[in-house]
Each structure stands twice: as C-alpha cells, then as structure tokens.
C-alpha cells in the first residue's frame, strides 16, 4: 500500500514536471536584459533595425 501511494506520488510529480516543463538540468542560462540595453544600439535589436532606425535622412 505504501509503495502504491509512493507510485502515485512519483507519477503525479512526473506528470506535473512534464506539464509545466520543469527542466531539472537546464542547458540554458537565464539573464535579465535591462530595458535600456534592449532599446540601445547593440542591444538585442537587429543590425538592420539598428541601422534602419539611426535617424536622419
């Protein structure tokens, strides 16, 4: 009975991790890019976007 309860717990945990996409060994790193950096030239804006929005005619 204890093992049955344990099995239910294990499989429920597995289902939750799959459902929410919990990655126990992430291969990525997470950073926060400030808004100022994102909107500045050389931020995550593309090269074309940067050149296309440099202003002037």
């Amino acid at each position, binding site marked *: *009975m*204890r*093992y*049955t309860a*344990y*099995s*239910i717990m*294990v*499989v*429920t*945990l*597995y*289902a939750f*991790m*799959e*459902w*929410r*996409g*919990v*990655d*126990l*060994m*992430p*291969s*990525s*790193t*997470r*950073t*926060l*890019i*400030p*808004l100022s*950096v*994102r909107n500045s030239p050389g931020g*995550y*804006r*593309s*090269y074309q*976007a940067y050149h296309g929005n440099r202003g002037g005619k």
Partner: protein
Amino acid sequence: MVCVCDYCHSLIARVGAQLEDLGHVPDLVAIDTRLALGDTGRMQKLTFQVLGRLQLHQGAASWNEWYVAWSDGSFGWLAEAAGRVIVSRRYERQVDVPEFGRLQVGQGVVLKGVGTLMIEELGDARIVSAQGELPFAPQLEQSYRFADGSISGGLYATIQYGVDEQPAEVFVGRELSYEAAGLAQAGERSWRAPQTSGRALRCKSCGGPMSLKQSSSVSVVCPHCHTLFNQEQGELDLIRQLKERFQPALPLGARGELLGHKLEVIGWTRRAVTVDNVEYSWDEYLLHGANGYSFLSENKGHWTFFTLLPLAALTSVSEREATFQGRRYKHFQRSSDVRYVDVQGEFYWEIKPDQRVRTDDYVQPPYQLSVEQTPKEKIWTHGEYIPADQLWQSFGQPGSPPPQQGVGPCQPNPYAKHKRGMLMGFGFGVALFVLFTLALAIFQPRRVRLVHQVPIADNQPVSLSEPFELRGGTQAVAISAVSDFALGNGWAALDVSLIEEETGRSNELDMEVSLFSGYTDGEAWSEDNRFPEQRLGAIKPGRYVLRVEPHYDPAYPRPFVLRLEVAQGAFLWLPLWLCILALGLPPLVWAILMFRFEARRWSESDHAGSDSDDSGDGD
C-alpha cells in the same frame, strides 16, 4: 466368540451351550488410553459400542485395538496408537495382496473400490493381552506380520498376514479425533491413565530414580547415568551406556503451547550426518499433548513444529518435489546415514543407537515436509516454522533462544510478504504513467510558434526574429535548427537567446550545426549534427523574440541560411527517466533482497546454485 473374565482373567469360549476355558490371559499392559469397555461412539448414522480389546506389541511400541460392535450388526476395530484413533472394518472384497516378503515401504497396493494403499510400515506384532469380548480366541505371544499404510482421502489400511497359511485379511479405516468418532466419554478421562502417570522406576545401572511421563514409552534414558533402556510394563532392559551428553536448549519437562496445542517436552535427541568428513547436527524434541505426539526440530537456531502425516495425504512425491494440500514443496535436502549423537528423556519408539536412517526434506516456506525412511518404515511429517522468540516465550524459557545462523530451510522470506504490494504498486504506477503520458500528448501537443530564417553572411553578425506569442501555460520550449549544408562540409555555432519582450528575461543557449563527410582509405564516412535541438524548461507565456548570433567556418561559402523553429509543448526526457527509475527502484531493491534471502536458503540445500524461484509465502 470369546470373552476374558474380568475377575480371573480366564479366556472363555462358548461352544454350543457350553463354556470352555481356553486358558489364562496375562494382566493388561499399562498403555495410555482414553477408552474403556462399554464406551459408545457414533459415525454418521451408525453407533458403536466397545466390547473388548487386544493389546499388541511390535517390539517398538504397544497399542490397544478395541473391538467394537456397530448398530447395523457388524463388527469392527478401533486402534489407538500415539494419540491417533483409527476406526476400521474388515475389507470384505477379494484382494490379491502380494506376499509379505515382496512388499516394500512406499509401494502401492490396489484395493478395488477403495484406492491405492501406500505402504508405510512393515512389521510383525504379537498379542500380549486381551480384555472383554472378542471375535476370536487370541493366540497370545504368537507373532503375525502386517503392512500398514494410508489411502488418499484420509483412509488407513492394514494387511494382516495370517499364520499357518491362513489368508491375509485387509482392514480399512479412517483416522478420527476422539470427538469426531463420537466418543463422548473419552473426553471425560484424563489422557494419562491414572495408574501410569509419573510412574517411578529405578535405574538398573546407577540405581537412581527414574520416572516415566508416558507408561507406553518404549525407550527411556536415565537422567543420572545416561543409560538407554527399553521399557515394557515397568521392566527396564538395559541397551547401552550412552557416551556423549549434551544440554538441550529446551529442557525436558518444559511446557508450552504451539499452534493451539498444549505440549510438554518428554524427549530430546541430537542427530547428525557426516558429509565430506564434516559433521552436521541438529536437535529433535519429542512433545506430548492431548492430541498425542508431535515433534520440534531445531537447526542453527531455527525451529520447526512437526506433526505426523499419512503418506496417502500427499498428492504426489518425486525426487524434486512433493504435493500436499495443493501446495508444491520443493526438494531441499537428502541426508543419508542419519544417526543419533545423544538421546535424553523417553520415546514411544525404540531408539536404536546404531540405526541409520535416510531423510528427505521438502520446503514451501513456512511449511516443510520431511520423510524418514528405513527399510521397514517410512514416516512423513509436516512442519511449520516457529519464530524462535515466539517459541521461547511460549515455553516460558528465560533468556534468549539459541542464536540463529543463516536461513532456515522453511523460514519465511521476510520480503515475500511485500510481493502483492510491490506488484500492485508497480502495476498501478505504470498504468498511471501511461495514462498521464497519453494525456500530455493529447492535451499539450507540440506546437510550432516560430519559424525563423537565419542568414549567415559577413554583414549579418546578429539575427533577430519578429516578435511571436507563446500561449497557454508555462511549458517547455524546444528550439531546433536545420541546415542542409548544400555547399559541402561546414559548421555554424549559434548563440541563441529567447527574450521575453515585456520583462527582458532572456534564456540563452548554444547550438551547433555541422556536416562533415569524406573518404578515407577508400571508405566513405560522415559526421553531422544537422538537426540539433535544445529544450528550455518552464517558459512562461508571453511575447518573445529570438536573437541568434552565428559563428561559422570562415572558409565556408556564404551567404547561406539556417532555419530555426521554436515549438511549445516540448517533451522533457529527464523527468521521464527519473520517473521510471523512481518507480522501478523499490521493486528492484525488493527483488534483490528477496532473491538474496532465497539464495542463502538454498545454498544450504542439495540444490545450491539452481533456480529456486520465489518463496511462495507471499501474501
């Protein structure tokens, strides 16, 4: 019809209207009994009354055969021996029984209409005394040969070989308790006849006092000088001065209760067998209680309680297994030339110190079948494992029982009781696992949210996707790349960032796309990673952009394009493997422990190293 006079013990026969004195009958032998002349019983619709008795002796034991008259006008016999009551009648059909000399213990003799009689004992007996009315004039002290055995269905039979060329007679009966035989009066008497209880004797060797707990005991050992005697009617016949003297773990006279039976230890033997110059010994106790005799075996601290079993009660017996009451017992061990090392107390059979017997043990924990065989006798017993602490407590013994070594032949596997729980838990877990996995595939399938072309060109150091939406709940995301490297061998490394526009949270990872192939020593080879995929866990819904910064082989012709896909509902393998591991680990550990226990059990058997499957006592 003859009758023994109660007063003068004369044997009187009625011949026509006259009475004829056939001589004097010796005094009755003191044999424990719960019956007396005049007792009545009932079996099914018939009643019977005890009219007389013969007392027989076969050298190893004495017993009563009570002559009974049935209410349908027929007659029969009721035998008491070692606490067993067998009610029998003469088998009236013609039987071609083999000659006595051709019979062997264990042989089957077909009795038409009844079954196959399995011979368990061959012997000869003599009538030593008589009482009351009898159907024939007993020929005192004259020996006759008999073959005793059992028939399936709880029947017993005796082939009685006549003297002086008289034809053999067959008696078929059934073993019953006194209560089942309707012998109501029997229960009112003490099991021990009052005149024989605690009978005092004096040792012929040392002169020390001895007392018999059972007047019918055949062998008795002096507690002072350790001399073995045969006893008959209080007369001791010196057999031998025993040499080695050990101390039984459970003392003689100890009283306790096992499996509902109140018992007293009245005898103890140490037995041994020598294999490859190594002596293996164990202890056997003779117990006595209201249901007669039983046995207790102690081997390396493991205790088993045995009771006698008729051979015919076994469904099948072979070298490898025996079947009893639907249970299959696997052969465990055969011991040849088993001998007595020490004997103490008293016994209902004749102890022959030089006798060698063969024993076979079959086990189905916590039960055990054992058979002890001599050329003239085959005795089956059925045993049940008794935990040492329970036995010690039951017999009120101080301290601790002898320490246990190894695993007992029929010791229950402590892990086997978890078998059902393990199977149920594992089955339930696997079913739930399959159900959840299918539900995930149905309700959270993989959905591609972005397809982004990444130009690989000198003037394109960074590529940004158009903003795209990740919808639904928090899920894993898969980012995969594809390139056909149509222009030949090459590689590209990608620094990929999935950036949430609103918060600036960025998930960064590396990917490499490559294709290498060629010929070496005339053989084609290739190494490629053309479809790499990386998974990002727990990505919240929102608006995202994909930033890709490629690095590439400067020698590779440019420009070319890599295609990246972002998909929600990616399946993560790690939780799956962890789930399988977590589900399977307890049964795996349980199975290893259980099989290790069984391996230790069977390492002591004749079949060490062979397959021994499970212990069979799972719940």
